[in-house]
Structures are given as structure tokens and as C-alpha cells.
């Protein structure tokens, strides 16, 4: 292990620790420290211990789908992934969280987002199903 590598590791960890001291420069932020640490820890574990087990389990379930001439797997997987991704990114509007601040900032409410998201998911499911039907039809035609 080279000395350069050791210096690099220590320097970068030092930078991370120094960054955290920004919080210590402002006494009004002291009461926020536990919250920030909890959210940081939560973010760290979010993928590996929450999202991964969820989508891995869903994927195992998809693998149990009945075998068809044109496999169903990706035609179920893709709309599900699209639904999960958009739910994750646009969650606050969809579940109407933080509505008072939202209204103060925009002058609007969050009423439309859940229905819009459901339509979006429905559209992804419909397109995926349509493509599957087309593939099945073309394969049947090709196979005589």
C-alpha cells in the first residue's frame, strides 16, 4: 500500500469531517444536528436495506409468472420499475405531504398529482401490454 494512497484516504476523510464543522459554525443549527444525522443514516441505508429488498422481492415474484411463448417478465418489470421510480421521485405531491408550504409557495394545491401518477402508471402498463400482444401476434404469424 503506497504512502500516496494512505495520504489520499486520510485527506478525503479529513475533508468530510471538516465539512461537518460547517454546522458547528452556526449555533442556530445545533438543535438540527440529531435530525441531520438521522436523515443521513437513513439515506445511507435507504437503498441497501429498504429499496433493494423491496425490488428484489418483487423481481422474485415476477420470476414466478407462467411461462409464455413471449416471456412476460420484462413486460411486467418495466411498468413496475417506471411506477416505482416516479413514485420515489415525486412522492411528496402524490401523497400530498407538505401541502401548506406548497400552497404558500405556488398558490396551488396538490390535489391532481395522485390521479396524474395513476394515469401515468396505467399508460405504462397499457403500452407494455400492447407491445406484448403485438410480439405474440407477430411470433404466431411467423410460426404459422
Amino acid at each position, binding site marked *: *500500500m503506497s504512502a500516496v*494512497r*494512505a495520504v*489520499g*484516504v*486520510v485527506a*478525503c*476523510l479529513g*475533508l*468530510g469531517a*471538516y*465539512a*461537518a*464543522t*460547517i*454546522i458547528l*459554525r*452556526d449555533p442556530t*443549527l445545533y438543535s*438540527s444536528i440529531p435530525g*441531520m444525522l438521522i*436523515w*443521513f*443514516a437513513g*439515506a*445511507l441505508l*435507504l*437503498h*441497501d436495506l429498504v*429499496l*433493494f429488498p423491496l425490488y428484489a422481492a418483487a423481481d422474485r415474484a415476477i*420470476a414466478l409468472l407462467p411461462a409464455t411463448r413471449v*416471456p412476460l*417478465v*420484462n413486460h411486467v*418489470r*418495466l411498468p413496475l420499475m*417506471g411506477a416505482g*421510480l*416516479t413514485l*420515489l*421521485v*415525486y412522492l*411528496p*405531491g402524490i401523497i400530498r*405531504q*407538505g401541502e401548506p*408550504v*406548497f*400552497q*404558500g*409557495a*405556488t*398558490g*396551488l394545491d396538490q390535489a*391532481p*398529482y395522485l390521479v*396524474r*401518477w395513476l394515469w*401515468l402508471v396505467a399508460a405504462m402498463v397499457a403500452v407494455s401490454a400492447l407491445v406484448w400482444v403485438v410480439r405474440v401476434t407477430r411470433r404466431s404469424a411467423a410460426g404459422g
Partner: protein
Amino acid sequence: MRIRWRSPIRGPWLTSVFGLVLLCGLPVVIVTGLLDWVAYGSQPIPADVGLLHLPGFDWPTRPAWLFRLTQGLHVGLGIVLVPVVLAKLWSVIPKLFTALPRHPLRALERFSLVLLVGGILFEIVTGLLNIQYDYVFGFSFYAAHYVGAWVFIAGFVLHVALKLPTMVRSLRSRSLRRELRTPLAETRPEPAGDLVAPDPDPPTMSRRGALAVVGGGTLLLAGLTIGQSVDALRPTALLLPRGRTAPDDFPVNRTFVASGIESAAVGAGWRLDLGALRLTRDELAALPQHTADLPIACVEGWSTQQTWTGVPLRELAALAGVPTPTGATVRSVEEGPFARAELTADQVLHPDSLLALQVNGADLSLDHGFPARIVVPALPGVHCTKWVATIGFSR
């Protein structure tokens, strides 16, 4: 615990493709984010960051769309990279279950992944909540997002330095062109090694399919985000706050009701206080007017371009007896953290910098800052003060 990893396409080449995309994209997100801190001028948040900021410079007024671009990129690129970040985390998850190295320096290297992974996901989560006005976390977004950024930068720099050779070697191990021509039926695992499952399931998706899925996720989010920054595409931002407006209006940033201002304070008795003199709205409207197309661009990444009409700030400075000001302090009728904005000389003297009385040919609405608001080229929207009460030009 012994886990059987099932994916036949997980391997260093695929991980390195995701890594390369992030290596190109994330520096742009980082730099545009740090530029936002500079754009806040003499009022950055958090105020005291020690040495951790870009070299200081006066935020320019040209081009007028500068902040629209930098902050739109910061938020927009940050959103569209979410699928790539998730794909990268998926691709390396077997590493989480490998034993901690004995060598202390190797253990420290492993620990630095806390900064890397915790940092990027903390930034994504707080950023996504902030642009949707969801403050469920209960702490200062600005401070947390800024500190989180530097914690991430520390982990990112180290990770790139340690892994760049591996990434280059892995990318060279397979031809991208050949992968893009390899269908599912011919998809085989990468050669045995790091990340590659020793006993995988049969493939259900080719490598090119996996890249297309991640790319498709990125395009989906891009399509649902671009509308918050492009007026003609606004309704396409289906699920974002700035995809909607009230009928025949453009997006409002902070309503009159939310400002807590009493109606009387912006009624007939309102005066603009320039120190040396006080002007009624009619007197302001009687001054020579200037019209300019200027964007309002907000820290949440959304923006809109409108046609503003009002009195150039430099004319007001001359009226106030300060023809060559070194800057200005603008105060709003509103009280609160964003009720005061400091402008540089350049921002006051730009010919298009306005105390706007009208937008798109009609008097400002209360929500857009009636009786008068500041509009300055390339200035963050939060400093384009609405419901202006006083402007103090400094000598």
C-alpha cells in the same frame, strides 16, 4: 449469511458503464450547486462555510439566463441521474456483504463509502423534498444540503481516485459496440471475478436491455422535469409543482397571502422610499419606463421568462442622488429571512435591471409583487424582491 446473487449480468463492466455516466454527470451537478452559493452574493446560505466554497466572484448579470441555466442544470441533471445512481448501487450490492478488511487503511477506504453513498442519497432525498416544498425533515435545507454536498464530494473524490483504474480496465474488458449487438439469447455472465455471481439464474435481460432500462428511466424523468424550466413545455412536468400555474398566469413564487402582508400596506398609502425621496406608484409610473424580457429563476430549479416593464434601477439611483452606486439594499414590505436583498453595482446599473410595475403589459398582481418588484438579469429569484418598500443605494 450466504447469499446467492442471481443476476447473470451484474459485473465490473456494467458497473463501470454506470460509473462513467456518473463520473461525467455528477461533477456538473456539484459545480452548478456550488455556483448557486456564489449567486446568492453577499447573502449566501449557510453564511460561514470556512474554506469550502468556490473562489469568490461577483455574480454576473450577463447572460440574463445564466442562473436559469446553472440552477436548472443542477436540479434537472440531479433528477435525471437518480436512475443511474440506483442502478450503480444495485450493481455493487454484493460488496455490502463482503467481510470488512483487516488492514486499517483498507477498512478506512471501506468506511469512506459511508460518505459516498450516504452523501449522494442524502443530497438526492433533501433536494427532491425541497423542490417539492416538503420540509418533513425539519432542519435547514440550505445548511444540510450544502454540508451534505461536501461530505459527498469528499467520498466521491476518494472513490474516483481509488477506482478509476478499475473502471478503465473494466470498460476495456468488453466492447460497448458488441454489447449493443448482443441479444438476450447470447448474453453470458462476465468472466468470474469481483461482483460476478458464481451461480447466476439464466438471463431474463441482456446487458444492452439493462442499459436501455436505465436510460429509459432517465429519459422518463427528463420528460417529466424539463417543463419546469421551459415555458412552452410547462404542462409536461406532470408531477412537479412548477408544471402547473393558475389560469393565464405564470408560476408564482410565494403568494401574497403567504407573505403575511396586510392589504393596506400595499394600498393607496404605499410609497417607495429611496432615502432622499418617497414616490407614489403613480409617480413611478410617470417616469420613463423600460421593457425587458427577463427570466425569474428559482433555487428549486424552475424558471420562466416574462416581459417586464418598469423603471430602470439606475434611473432610480440617479433620482436618489446616487448616480454611480456601489450597490443597493432592497427591502420588502414583507418581514422574514428573504425580505432584504443586497445588489452589486453591476446588478443595479445593468440597463435591464428594473423596479417592475407591470408584467406582460398589465399591472403586477399581488402575487407577483404589486405595487412594485425587482427584476435583475441572472439574479436568483429569491433576491428579485417583491412588494418593495425601500431601496437604499450605497455610495
